[in-house]
């Protein structure tokens, strides 16, 4: 197996290398998954402070009725930034950070499958956050809510560039998330230690793995919707405005098709942490491993079929409401199964209430409250009653803070010793715990009542109705108590990192592989890997004696002989993600170009199907050429492969030239992206396809160079094969586009 070398390993000069390994630059240039994981966590902590201070400003404004502490415009901006920051810059990257640090350790690997891609994924995150906050000095932060409902986000209603920065920042963050998810899938499939078959994976790894599929499939839906919104705003199109025939409700469909899986993207890894922590501190294996693992998959599949419960108030019709109410209630079943598994794990166990365990138990209680209010919201009539009230605010904060954030805090106390080599102070930990539990419930429990008595959310102030002021004041006080608790956490992290008690390799008596190495682990993770014959290798080891430990070199060499090849896994996951992106563009095209009753024929009279057929033939021929190139490489005919690749590139360029000619012709006839919805959807769909062709040509040219220089050979055909899969995918998408756009109107 070829282990990936970091650039540091390649440096010949020992003293320069030492400086590179410890100085600040070493953190910028690192490709070590552990350092990247810590960078993720620290950056998230920074943004958590930002989002938390924003929340405190909101609570100050809402502490008294008819308050003018913040103006409505500023309130809307802070409110939007709080939501966007907490979702995209805190919860998601925190979970990715933990996964980055822990997954390779838990599966006994040296690093992620693609360490450099991993570094890229990380750096996209702070830069995405920077873009989002840059909007503040361009005339105001985005102010239309983290959900960005059209038409409020359209130009006439949000004319500052804030919304554009919001769109671009989310696109950048989305690309980073998809890249890290693909990396995670490839890592779990290809780098597991021998014996660590998938049915034995630690549940945190399994849930991160399943979540990665959710990210790969859900984020492109958001990306597609975002680019449509950007085209609306900057190119004067009308996807989401009634003026010009668009449909604002379509934005909600797209957004929540992403948004509901997103809820589980933020919840499943947290479930995974709880599934690691509760068994260790109960001194029992998890009860019903199979049910916890299987119900995760059920949640993942169902999560794509429940989005419209965010839209009951839109008026989708009784049939759709009933179906979505039923599916939303159904998704509570696999989630409930997990709760019972965790309770049954604790049942009869020798429970140790460390701070980590306290947070895990609090998670169970708070998350059940959030889950139950969620089930009430699945009933459409109840949702109509409380929609857009503080009941909803209470519900999702119980899920995201009471659920995910509590689990993350349990995770911090549990894994900090592994990351730093020192234990966090239990005394400060307990103070932190109680401040947060009291503050959290004081803040959000009362909001259930505020919602039920009708206080609307997303509004900068409220009238002085009986009880509203007092409940809101208690909410504000609670928020500040929570803020204090978070300060205690920061103090604890800083103090314990310097002066905490040394942790040793395995302070909790845990049994997954990350505890088999030193704390903190060496750059290469493991010098020796215990044998894996079950789900609890360290437990098995402790009860079988250390005699059968084997060397890491042999173990890791064995891992490469799995059934999966990492570049193939990565490219197929990437293709699935791109498929999701195009699916949304195609659905939008179909939606706006379906023959409507009473409409005057099809809207595509200006297209020349014959010339389009010609350049389609070029593209298909290029796929054939790419396939021949692969075959030639398999026969070790380097010059043949180069020739076929050159033919592929040439045919692809011909396709792009044909498309450019068509575009110019349309523009000369005055057909532009803002002409009408046909033109908008046509240019969006074919334009993005053209961009993918162009990207594919760049990749093919790189492959051509690799084959010529002898870096891509019969023995190492991974690069050419991966690019080939991508190229065939781009062509397959064009076949669908061609038949829908050019052929269908002829039928």
């Amino acid at each position, binding site marked *: 197996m070829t282990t990936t070398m970091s650039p540091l390993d390649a440096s010949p000069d020992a003293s320069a290398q030492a400086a590179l390994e410890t100085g600040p630059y070493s953190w910028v240039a690192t490709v070590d998954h552990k350092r990247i994981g810590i960078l993720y966590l620290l950056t998230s902590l920074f943004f958590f402070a930002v989002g938390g201070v924003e929340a405190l400003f909101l609570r100050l404004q809402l502490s008294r009725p008819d308050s003018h502490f913040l103006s409505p415009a500023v309130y809307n901006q802070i409110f939007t930034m709080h939501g966007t920051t907490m979702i995209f810059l805190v919860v998601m990257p925190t979970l990715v950070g933990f996964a980055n640090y822990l997954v390779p350790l838990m599966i006994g690997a040296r690093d992620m499958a693609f360490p450099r891609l991993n570094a890229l994924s990380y750096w996209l995150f702070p830069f995405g956050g920077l873009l989002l906050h840059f909007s503040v000095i361009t005339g105001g932060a985005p102010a239309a809510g983290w959900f960005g409902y059209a038409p409020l986000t359209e130009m006439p209603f949000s004319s500052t560039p804030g919304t554009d920065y919001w769109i671009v920042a989310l696109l950048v963050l989305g690309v980073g998330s998809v890249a890290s998810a693909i990396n995670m899938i490839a890592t779990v499939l290809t780098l597991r230690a021998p014996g660590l078959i*998938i049915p034995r994976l630690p549940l945190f790894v399994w849930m991160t793995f399943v979540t990665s599929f959710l990210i790969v499939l859900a984020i492109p839906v958001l990306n597609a919707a975002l680019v449509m919104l950007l085209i609306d705003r900057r190119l004067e199109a009308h996807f989401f405005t009634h003026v010009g025939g668009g449909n604002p409700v379509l934005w909600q469909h797209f957004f929540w098709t992403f948004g509901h899986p997103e809820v589980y993207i933020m919840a499943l890894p947290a479930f995974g942490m709880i599934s690691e922590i509760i068994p260790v501190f109960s001194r029992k294996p998890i009860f019903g491993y199979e049910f916890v693992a299987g119900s995760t998959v*059920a949640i993942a599949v169902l999560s794509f079929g429940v989005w419209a419960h965010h839209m009951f108030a839109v008026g989708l019709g*009784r049939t*759709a409401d009933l179906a979505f109410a039923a599916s939303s209630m159904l998704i509570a079943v696999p989630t409930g199964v997990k709760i019972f598994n965790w309770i049954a794990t604790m049942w009869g166990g020798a429970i140790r209430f460390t701070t980590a365990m306290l947070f895990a138990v609090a998670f169970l209680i708070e998350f059940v409250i959030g889950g139950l209010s969620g089930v009430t919201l699945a009933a459409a009539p109840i949702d109509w009653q409380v929609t857009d009230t503080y009941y909803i605010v209470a519900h999702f904060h119980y899920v995201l803070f009471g659920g995910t954030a509590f689990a993350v805090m349990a995770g911090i106390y549990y894994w900090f010793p592994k990351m730093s080599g020192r234990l966090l102070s239990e005394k400060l930990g307990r103070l932190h715990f109680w401040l947060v539990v009291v503050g959290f419930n004081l803040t959000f429990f009362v909001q259930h009542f505020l919602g039920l008595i009708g206080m609307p959310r997303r509004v900068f102030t409220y009238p002085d109705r009986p009880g509203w002021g007092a409940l809101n004041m208690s909410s504000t006080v609670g928020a500040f108590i929570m803020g204090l608790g978070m300060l205690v956490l920061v103090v604890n992290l800083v103090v314990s990192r310097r002066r905490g008690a040394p942790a040793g390799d395995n302070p909790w008596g845990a049994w997954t592989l990350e505890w088999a190495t030193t704390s903190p682990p060496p750059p290469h993770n493991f010098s020796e890997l215990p044998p894996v014959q079950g789900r609890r290798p360290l437990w098995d080891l402790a009860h079988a004696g250390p005699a059968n430990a084997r060397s890491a070199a042999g173990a890791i060499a064995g891992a490469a002989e*799995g*059934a999966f090849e990492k570049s193939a896994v990565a490219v197929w996951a990437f293709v699935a993600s791109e498929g999701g992106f195009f699916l949304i563009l195609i659905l939008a095209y179909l939606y706006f170009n379906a023959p409507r009753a009473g409409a005057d024929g099809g809207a595509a009279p200006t297209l020349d199907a014959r010339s389009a057929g010609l350049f389609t033939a070029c593209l298909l021929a290029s796929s054939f050429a790419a396939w021949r190139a692969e075959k030639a490489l398999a026969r070790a005919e380097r010059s043949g492969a180069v020739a076929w690749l050159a033919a592929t590139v040439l045919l692809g360029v011909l396709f792009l030239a044909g498309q450019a000619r068509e575009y110019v012709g349309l523009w000369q006839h005055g057909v532009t992206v803002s002409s009408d919805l046909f033109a908008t959807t046509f240019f969006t769909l074919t334009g993005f396809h053209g961009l993918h062709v162009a990207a594919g040509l760049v990749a093919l040219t790189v492959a051509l160079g690799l084959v010529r220089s002898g870096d891509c050979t019969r023995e190492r055909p991974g690069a050419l094969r991966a690019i080939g899969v991508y190229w065939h995918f781009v062509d397959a998408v064009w076949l669908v586009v061609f038949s829908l756009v050019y052929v269908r109107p002829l039928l």
Partner: protein
Amino acid sequence: VNTARLLASTWSVDPLAIVACATAVVLAVWAGQRRTGSGLACLLAAAATIVLAVASPLGVIADGYLFSAHMLQHLLLLLVAPPLALLGLPAMASVPPTAPARLRVRPIPTWGTWALGVAAMWLWHAPTLCNAASQSAFVHRTQEVSLLLLGTLFWIPIVGPRLGRRLRPLTGVVYLFTACAACTVLGIIVTFSPVEVCSVYLRPTDRLGIVPLLRDGWGLTPERDQELGGLLMWVPSCFVYLLGILGLLSRWYRTAQDDAGVAHREPA
């Protein structure tokens, strides 16, 4: 006509139902010693599903009256009866590695059975074919038989009797999940589509005099009927695929297979 009368009086003797029942009996007898209780139950359930789909009031209403009833029939024939029938067959030994090559390869590649199963859903809902199936008895029969056949081909890699030929768990999950996604996309299009997928169901030929009951009594206007049809295609069919996924996972955890399909035994 009221609902009770309709449900009581429209059962028919359908050749396909008779063939299905006879086949179930033949298979049960053929299985002989290798027959298990659950296998027999699955065979009976498969036959009952087919009877319900074609010989019951559902079959009558599906024939030109209600798009949603047609969709239910479609799901029973494509997604419920075939896997039940396959599960009812006794497990067959794996093909030995010494057997001729033609026996060892899959007759249809995996992507092919996937495509056939998904095509059975998509093609029969192209407006032309969908209308033709309601207007011609021959096309209608072809539709029913093709659904059963294509459904069987689709499900063989998941629950086929040759255990060695079944897909590996992770591949199987992807196989079923992508099929669910394909169904979902079509279901979304049908549910939210502003146009009629099957114009026949707009103005049914009322040979039984039940249109007033369906439209007013059951409240199924043409729009609501199509919406319900789309949702049936989308939600319950994905539940079937999800059940398949959960079945695969539970088998995986029981046998603890590695990536190459070799079973490991868990230490006690």
